[in-house]
């Protein structure tokens, strides 16, 4: 008795409220997205909005059940959950139904179950459990390896299901590790590598080399903590480049700008080595390593891009980066989506009055592109409100996580925030052309029982842990 009361008193109702608000708003938008004059009743079960209500109600039941279970249960069975879901993930490769080229669903009596969705909270539990162990130290190599495996294994199996988009979520756990002590440089280098990846695709060789040379010089300046060095470096390279161009013109060597810059760079590197032999050798080596490492990444980017990505994935990235434009093919969804959202203006066209939505110009509008309905019918104001709600949710969860005494709960909490954030960021960015089209849902908003339940479980486990934060010590 006492425990039950504690739960309901200690439960973070603010979060529950936001959850219900998002779910409800999602449901209304699905109605607007799929709206069809012949089936006006929002409770009509033959339509998606009717079905979504069923998923919502079921979801609430699931949430209550999650809350009723003792919080220690989750910590105790974390690895078991993880193992079970892993089995399901592998199982779906053999027994699953193939949908849109991806084999990621079980079909049981007309109801679909997607193990990839469940994998998120299961992995989160496993990570939390591992990090909260007594002897855990983030700096140890063993920690790196185990944590890396814990997130890589499910991700790889999901990639084998041909559902690369869903697998990308697992990268967000790096943020969780960061909070638990992972060296910030990993985050930084990861981010830098991503930027380099994009630049390598977008810039031509000359600009790319110029960029790499400049940041290497800046890196040197940072390491030496001196702006003078940066300016010196830039001047040296600049002069060499100018000389090279001059020689090219005078002797009619016929080289391109790229060749000239390359020549200048090589001479600079030699100069640097000579300079470094006299002093500051360690920093010189660091900068040179940095430079060559970046060059290596850029060169492998192209190889990776051509040979590892599938054609439709390349097409989407090309579309996003403006490398190619195919408004009726790869770019169709996003083009229509941007039109729908853009046409919403400041205040939107009003509920059920979105013409793009009404005439079904945006494909997948009740699932991946549900945000279009918000953008078109509720305008900039409405969109910002929804975004605000989400951000408020993330920050709230982080703050809740911080107030946990148990490390397990805290890690798990950060995991929840990260996973929700990833879906939110990528899904909405996709609809406005800031991210390539990856099929992942907007949490609580997109149509679908599987994803709604999975997110509900994910969130409510944390709420349960939080409700008993007074008791947990680990």
């Amino acid at each position, binding site marked *: 008795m006492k425990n039950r009361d504690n739960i309901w008193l200690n439960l973070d109702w603010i979060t529950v409220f936001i959850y219900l608000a998002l779910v409800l708003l999602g449901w209304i938008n699905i109605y607007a997205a799929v709206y069809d004059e012949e089936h006006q009743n929002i409770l009509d079960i033959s339509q998606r909005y009717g079905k979504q209500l069923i998923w919502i109600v079921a979801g609430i039941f699931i949430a209550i059940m999650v809350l009723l279970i003792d919080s220690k249960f989750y910590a105790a069975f974390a690895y078991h959950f993880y193992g079970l879901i892993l089995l399901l993930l592998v199982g779906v490769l053999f027994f699953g139904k193939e949908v849109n080229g991806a084999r990621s669903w079980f079909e049981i009596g007309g109801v679909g179950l997607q193990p990839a969705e469940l994998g998120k909270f299961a992995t989160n539990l496993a990570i939390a459990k591992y990090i909260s162990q007594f002897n855990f130290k983030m700096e140890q190599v063993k920690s790196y390896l185990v944590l890396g495996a814990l997130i890589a294994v499910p991700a790889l199996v999901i990639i084998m299901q041909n559902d690369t988009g869903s697998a990308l979520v697992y990268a967000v756990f790096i943020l969780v590790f960061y909070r638990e002590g992972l060296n910030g440089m990993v985050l930084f280098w990861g981010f830098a590598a991503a930027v380099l990846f994009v630049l390598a695709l977008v810039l031509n060789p000359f600009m790319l080399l110029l960029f790499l040379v400049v940041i290497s010089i800046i890196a040197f300046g940072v390491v030496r903590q001196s702006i003078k060095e940066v300016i010196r470096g830039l001047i040296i390279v600049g002069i060499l480049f100018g000389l090279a161009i001059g020689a090219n013109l005078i002797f009619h060597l016929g080289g391109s700008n790229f060749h000239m810059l390359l020549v200048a760079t090589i001479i600079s590197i030699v100069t640097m080595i000579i300079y470094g032999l006299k002093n500051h050798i360690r920093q010189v080596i660091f900068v040179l390593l940095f430079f060559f490492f970046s060059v290596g990444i850029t060169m492998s980017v192209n190889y990776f891009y051509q040979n590892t990505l599938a054609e439709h994935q390349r097409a989407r990235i090309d579309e996003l980066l403006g490398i190619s434009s195919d408004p*009726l093919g790869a770019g169709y969804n996003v083009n229509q989506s941007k039109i729908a*959202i853009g046409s919403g203006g*400041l205040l939107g066209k009003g509920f059920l009055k979105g013409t793009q939505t009404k005439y*079904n110009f945006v494909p997948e509008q009740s699932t991946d592109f549900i945000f279009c309905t918000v*953008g078109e019918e509720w305008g*900039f104001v409405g969109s910002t409100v929804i975004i605000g709600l989400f951000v408020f949710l993330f*920050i709230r969860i*982080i703050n809740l996580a*911080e107030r946990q005494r148990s490390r397990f709960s805290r890690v798990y909490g950060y995991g929840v925030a990260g996973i929700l954030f990833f879906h939110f960021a990528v899904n909405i960015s996709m609809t*406005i052309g800031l991210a390539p089209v990856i099929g992942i849902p907007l949490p609580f908003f997109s149509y679908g029982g599987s994803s709604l339940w999975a997110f509900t479980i994910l969130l409510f486990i944390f709420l349960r842990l939080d409700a008993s934060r007074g008791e947990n010590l680990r």
Partner: protein
Amino acid sequence: MDTFTKRKYLLIGIFSGVAFIIILRLFFIQVLSPSYKISAASNVLRRVVNYPARGLIYDRNEKLLVYNQAAYDVQVIPRELKAFDTLAFCRIVGVEKEELVTELKKAKSYSRYKPSAVIKQLSSQRYAILQEQLFKYPGFYIQARTLRQYPDLIAAHILGYVGEVDQRQIDQNPYYESGDYIGKIGLEQAYEEELRGTKGINYMMVDVHNRVKGSFENGKLDTAAMIGKNLVSTLDADIQRYAEMLLVGKVGSVVAIEPSTGEILVLASSPSFDPGMFIGRERTKNYRNLLNDPLKPMLNRAISSSYPPGSTFKLANAIIGLEEGVIGDDVRYSCHGPGSTPIKCTHNHETPLGLTAAIRESCNSYFFQAFRATINKYHNAEEGFEAWRNHLLDLGFGQKIGADLPAESAGNIPKTSYYDRFFGKNRWNVMTIRSLSIGQGELLLTPLQMANMVATIANRGYYVSPHIVKKIQNYDRSETTLQFEKHVTQVRPELAEIVVNGMEKVVESGTARTAARLDSVIVCGKTGTIQNPHGEAHSAFVAFAPKYNPKIAIAVYVENGVWGARYAAPIASLIIEKYLCDSIAPRRKYLEQNMLTSNIIGDQLLSGGD
């Protein structure tokens, strides 16, 4: 609480930062940029393909051989479909309801927002009716296409026809999409790229009611359509028609070339087919019927079939013998008629005889001995045969000689290695291969090669690669005259002249005197009767006229025609007469009637669908 607590600020910062970027972008596209608003009002992109008119084909006198007619495909965009009166629709377009339902299902599974053709090649009448009522059937569109139309049903084999492109062709050439047309067989195929032009693509902005609002991005992505180029062929439509009429009731072919230019005047093959059968709703059935017809109407016997040339080949052996210097007017061989050995001669004539007489009487004995002399001039049979073979290659045999003819057969001149394998090295000699002397045995020529042979003789020693197209007309009315290779053979003009004289005698007083002699023109020819183990002998005749400044060289090959002068020679001479004199002399009218009405195929019905 934890050494890393402060890190929460970075994470909150990342979350807020990303959300901020998103809001910024939303601000830009929702509030600042007006283009999306405008786009929404005219929101869907429709990709409209403009199929240009396919190039026309003319004959050498600018008579139209193939032109275009408009046809209409009914397309559907499944997403835009609303409930409609299916019965009324089916009545208008003339389709069964089940068929329509099946096609709609296929369209839906292909793509919900890309158009699929559900009814193809709707007739103009039905199109007119449907067009008026189209507003009742949202989601349906009409795509205009062009189909081929033939003012005269001639030259089906060489003109070819047009059909839908198949998956393999789409894979090979991305220009083609599903539903496009492509030339199949004949000129339609050989000159596909010139004839088809370039299709144009327009991206249109269409509003909710599917009214066209303008071009997408001001036509930045559009490509212009370019109409197909016209072909001026070398065929003479009137003579081609005449040849085909003469061939009715027989299985065989006619090839006529203008010797000095290599232009093919006539290329006829019988039985033929109606290319109009590949248009319309019955086309698949018709095609199957044609394929299964045992007489193979789709086979172009003039260039794709190779036959033993029989006695017509004696002309080649004569030339080779003259080139090798082993025969001439002064060299005479004896012939004992049907009693000759090793090859018996089927005609009774003077003996001994020289080359001109041998050609005139088609003497097997003479030609065997001439052949033997040619081969035995060398150290051994192998060397002799090689030399003989090389002469043939020089004359254009054993290879494809047409410059722009699709599906040409190269015929067959046996190689030394063949005999070596068959008989054993050094175990064969001129006796073993003696049937080659009279144009039988393993030798195979196409009627085109036979016609080219007489063209070479007519030109006294050279030929121009036979071709079917002489000019290509561009859309700006400029013309490109095509150039073709002139092959000068080793035949010296004075030697050719000797053979020409022989050929003149054939028609004047030899084996073709009844069938081929004309009053106003000197015709030079050679008959051939080809033994056929499966039935009646084949009838062949090659000729050119006039003897000086020849204008036409012709080869006629009639399967099972019994003997050369029975069908091939009359047909050839009638064509020559028609071509050179415009009409047939009264005394030869009976011959013309005979050829027009004779039918040696018998009761075998020519199936061709209807």
